[in-house]
């Protein structure tokens, strides 16, 4: 979230699309309800009428996988109606930037496209033609009047001119009147002082164009001046209490702690890594990532301690590099495992036999493992995969170890919520039996591996031998030591801005980190979270800030540097005065900023033609300091474009001649079956969650009160489809895709309606993915991910579990 949970209450219009917050983030509705009571409009867009829709002022259906068409239509509406916030767009976004004249979009692809026959990516872009035109000083050329035909604003207008409501309605199946009502209602937040927010989740991310779904909304938010303001922002609702924290601390293969890039063979030496980022020649651009060398070196110092020296590149040579051009995502891991290339597997706090797209492939892949260590609260379908449906245990050689883990309330530590709030939690009951906190297990594992390498040597032992590994107190894992390590220490006496910080003291914030090895920090983004003033995440003050908008600055701690609403320097005009005088985030009092922690303390710009040279543009994380309406860094294009899901019910993409995203990752092994426009699988399928269960259900299926509420996997379908198939409400049916099938109880409901797509009727069904054969004991309630495809987004490789094709049949 750029904003945070409580801030939803400040919104004037809440769009819930790509998420089902009432069901899957029930507590968020405390703030949604509060906003509604103050007059905010709630819009729910979902293929199916949900519990969220039940509370919405406006509900509209759309066919799964057509969000870019829907939102592209909104962009066109906003531009045509002139409801964008021109002052904001011209001053704070890259709309005025001039793009190279070679840039274009033709035949469904952007300039620079190349097919990649080897896969899994279908194609890739040479992004040279997407670059900005530079002046003689190396600063992007701009036309703040937004009239130059090569400026981003005009290119945007041209690109989305095809997204008229008639075409959009044909693609999405959303009635034209609903599109217009929603566009009108949401576009009204472009007025100065009004704020609209988006609450999205996996309904947007899990597509072969997932990143671009969010990009489309980000463009809308920039056009309407909704970034940085209270009640605005782009807000990802995370699916677990600590998804944000685990992402911040490098859950994903391509990211190191604090969103540093994973070292790659592209950058064999530290100097290559540290010099790779684009520089800005604009004195008004903070280009914050220019500080990356300080963060990277401090991270390496945290990894290797005294062994990391300037002479050995702080141990950069020791860390593994990804092969340039190769992805190591979830889909790639299981693809490699399926091909027998992975022999050992720690399945830690997860259940890929049920949670992974194309779960049947994952289960087959596990047969190729020599060993698996399953770390979880209870046994699950992954640890027991060898005795699952269709398996021949006598033929499977995989040795499975189970390590019982302590549950969250049995251990001390922090979680970081969707709003980036790091909250310290204390231990309640002691772990049961031999269950241990994950930290204990990892520390002991590290100790033993280190001892083995020290004794026996081996290939490339240095990173293990030199790993700094001192996080115990009295022989046990100490979460405070880890939290302090993450914050970081001064490693020798350091003088910054005239003040000397003693060796061994905690670094007050990332502004003090150094690139010369004199500081360490396990994650620069969390530097400021545990300082000499104490554990900031453990604070519990109920006192709000001076702006009274519910940011409670001394309740827990929030990255970066306790800034509760990021990009907040865009919430004010050039003079530093808030667009919204009531729900203001920050304001300039003539000598300093008041309210939230600003995105840098520089004074206001004052004017664009004669700016205060001490000021900076507000979007400090971007090279040129402007919000990116044009996003030349993405793998699949600088503007979003509608492509169909890999499996779709239509034979034609009405918006361009390409069917599937030309850079989508599509796997081609024996288990990667796809069927598009195939009469065997005529219905659109999607997966989702319900309030009553959690993830793959490991923590909820065994809970009798929750199983009482939702005892069985179900498939929701319209009355019309049920009639067509002769299915009665409550009847068990078979749902199948090109990859697998399962039984489910039919819920025949008015909440699903057939779509009218390109003149034909298209039916859609949906299933929750919380079940698995291990429990309930009947073994009949299986994972809906047996149906979903192994295809992914080109930027993130997140799998496309939200739009695929199925059939439904009576048993």
């Amino acid at each position: 979230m750029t904003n945070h949970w409580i801030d939803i209450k400040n919104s004037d219009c809440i769009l819930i699309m790509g998420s089902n917050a009432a069901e899957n983030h029930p507590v968020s509705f405390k703030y949604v309800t509060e906003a509604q009571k103050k007059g905010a409009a709630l819009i729910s867009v979902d293929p199916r009428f949900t519990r969220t829709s039940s509370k919405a002022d406006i509900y509209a259906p759309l066919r799964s996988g057509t969000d870019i068409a829907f939102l592209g239509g909104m962009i066109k509406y906003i531009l045509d109606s002139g409801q964008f916030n021109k002052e904001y767009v011209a001053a704070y976004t890259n709309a005025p930037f001039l793009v190279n004249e070679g840039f274009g979009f033709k035949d469904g692809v952007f300039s620079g496209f190349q097919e990649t026959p080897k896969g899994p990516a279908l194609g890739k872009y040479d992004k040279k033609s997407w670059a900005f035109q530079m002046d003689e000083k190396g600063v992007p050329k701009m036309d703040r009047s937004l009239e130059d035909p090569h400026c981003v604003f005009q290119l945007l207008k041209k690109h989305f001119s095809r997204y008229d409501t008639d075409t959009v309605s044909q693609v999405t199946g959303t009635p034209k009147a609903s599109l217009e009502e929603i566009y009108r209602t949401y576009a009204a937040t472009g007025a100065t002082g009004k704020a609209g927010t988006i609450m999205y989740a996996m309904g947007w991310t899990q597509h072969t164009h997932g990143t671009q779904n969010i990009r489309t909304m980000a463009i809308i938010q920039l056009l309407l001046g909704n970034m940085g303001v209270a009640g605005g922002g782009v807000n990802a609702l995370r699916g677990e209490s600590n998804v944000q924290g685990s992402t911040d601390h490098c859950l994903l293969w391509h990211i190191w702690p604090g969103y540093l890039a994973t070292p790659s063979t592209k950058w064999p030496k530290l100097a290559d890594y540290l010099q790779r980022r684009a520089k800005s020649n604009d004195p008004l651009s903070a280009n914050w990532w220019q500080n990356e060398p300080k963060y990277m070196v401090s991270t390496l110092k945290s990894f290797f301690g005294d062994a990391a020296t300037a002479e050995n590149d702080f141990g950069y040579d020791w860390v593994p590099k990804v092969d340039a051009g190769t992805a190591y995502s979830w889909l790639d891991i299981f693809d490699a495992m399926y091909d027998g290339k992975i022999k050992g597997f720690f399945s830690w706090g997860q259940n890929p036999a049920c949670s992974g797209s194309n779960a049947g492939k994952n289960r087959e892949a596990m047969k190729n493992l020599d060993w698996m260590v399953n770390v979880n609260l209870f046994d699950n379908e992954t640890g027991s995969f060898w005795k699952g449906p269709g398996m021949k245990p006598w033929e499977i050689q995989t040795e499975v170890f189970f390590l019982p883990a302590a549950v969250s309330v049995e251990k001390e530590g922090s979680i970081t919520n969707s709003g980036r709030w790091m909250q310290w939690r204390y231990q309640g009951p002691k772990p049961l039996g031999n269950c241990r906190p994950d930290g204990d297990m990892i520390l002991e594992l590290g100790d033993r591996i280190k001892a083995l390498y020290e004794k026996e040597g081996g290939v490339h032992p240095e990173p293990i031998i030199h790993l700094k590994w001192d996080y115990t107190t009295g022989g046990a894992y100490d979460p405070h030591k880890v939290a302090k390590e993450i914050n970081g220490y001064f490693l020798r006496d350091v003088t910054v801005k005239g003040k000397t910080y003693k060796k061994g003291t905690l670094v007050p914030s990332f502004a003090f980190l150094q690139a010369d090895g004199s500081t360490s920090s396990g994650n620069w983004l969390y530097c400021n979270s545990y300082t000499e003033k104490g554990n900031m995440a453990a604070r519990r003050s109920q006192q709000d800030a001076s702006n009274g908008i519910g940011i409670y600055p001394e309740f827990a701690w929030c990255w970066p540097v306790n800034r509760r609403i990021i990009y907040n320097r865009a919430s004010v005009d050039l003079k530093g005065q808030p667009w919204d005088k009531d729900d203001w985030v920050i304001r300039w009092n003539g000598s300093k900023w008041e309210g939230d922690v600003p995105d840098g303390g520089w004074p206001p710009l004052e004017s664009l033609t004669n700016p205060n040279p001490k000021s900076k543009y507000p979007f400090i994380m971007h090279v040129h300091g402007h919000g990116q309406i044009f996003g030349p860094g993405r793998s699949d294009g600088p503007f979003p474009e509608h492509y169909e899901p890999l499996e779709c019910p239509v034979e034609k993409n009405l918006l361009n001649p390409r069917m599937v995203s030309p850079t989508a990752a599509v796997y081609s092994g024996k288990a990667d079956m796809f069927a598009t426009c195939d009469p065997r699988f005529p219905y659109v399928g999607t997966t989702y969650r319900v309030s009553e269960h959690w993830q793959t259900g490991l923590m909820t299926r065994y809970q009798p009160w929750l199983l009482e509420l939702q005892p069985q996997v179900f498939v929701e379908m319209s009355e019309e489809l049920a009639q067509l198939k002769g299915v009665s409400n409550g009847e068990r049916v078979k749902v199948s895709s090109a990859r697998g099938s399962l039984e489910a109880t039919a819920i025949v409901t008015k909440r699903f309606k057939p779509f009218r797509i390109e003149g034909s009727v298209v039916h859609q069904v949906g299933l929750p993915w919380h079940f698995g054969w291990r429990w309930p004991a009947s073994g009949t309630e299986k994972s809906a991910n047996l149906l979903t495809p192994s295809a992914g987004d080109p930027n993130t490789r997140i799998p496309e579990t939200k739009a695929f094709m199925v059939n439904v049949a009576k048993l």
Partner: protein
Amino acid sequence: MTKAFFIDTTVCTGCRGCQVACKQWHDLPAEETENRGSYQNPSDLSAMTYKLVRMREEEIDGKLRWLFFPDQCRHCLDAPCKGTAMYEEAIYQEPATGAILYTMATRELNAQEIIDSCPYNIPRKGPDGVLAKCDMCIDRVINGQLPACVKTCPTGAMNFGDREEMLQLADRRLGEARKKFPKASLLDPDEVSVIYLVAYDRSHYEVAARARTPEGLTRQAALRKMISPLTRSVAHIG
């Protein structure tokens, strides 16, 4: 001052936290259920389920509505079940809160008669013959805590407090709700301690309301009212 609930169904999201919290506080077992083509489960109140979020999908004025109704004992000010039993050992009104409470002695009553007496179709008979229903979490309330269902509600649909305060809240919310839902109403605010705000006609929500005569009474209740003097004397003899 007696207590009351105010249940604002216009902001209820049907998350069913209240339904589970009730089971948790009362340590009630789960029922073995199956999906009957609906999210609502169990299908009805029972001696193991004092609180049930009823769910209905209805097209009202051309628009689809998914209506959630967290159903429970209304703790009537003048409770027909209590009046029918006329046996304070079994059914009594706790004076400080106004809670209508059932004891083990309800097993001595004619269970069907008590069930039929309820205008809201709430009490249920357990296998041991004891009648069961919501007890207002009386053990929590007399210790200054909120009922479990209220404590767990994320949206403010479930409210609890002094009766006057709840009536004021109900009136205020009714006024606000009518801007969106012109037919919104409070259900029997002068007769019960559990006051619901509903957006549409009560028959969309309440099982009992759907079975009512035009005069607003169930057939059983009408019959019971007619013969109540007799019932009472019988109860005395019993």
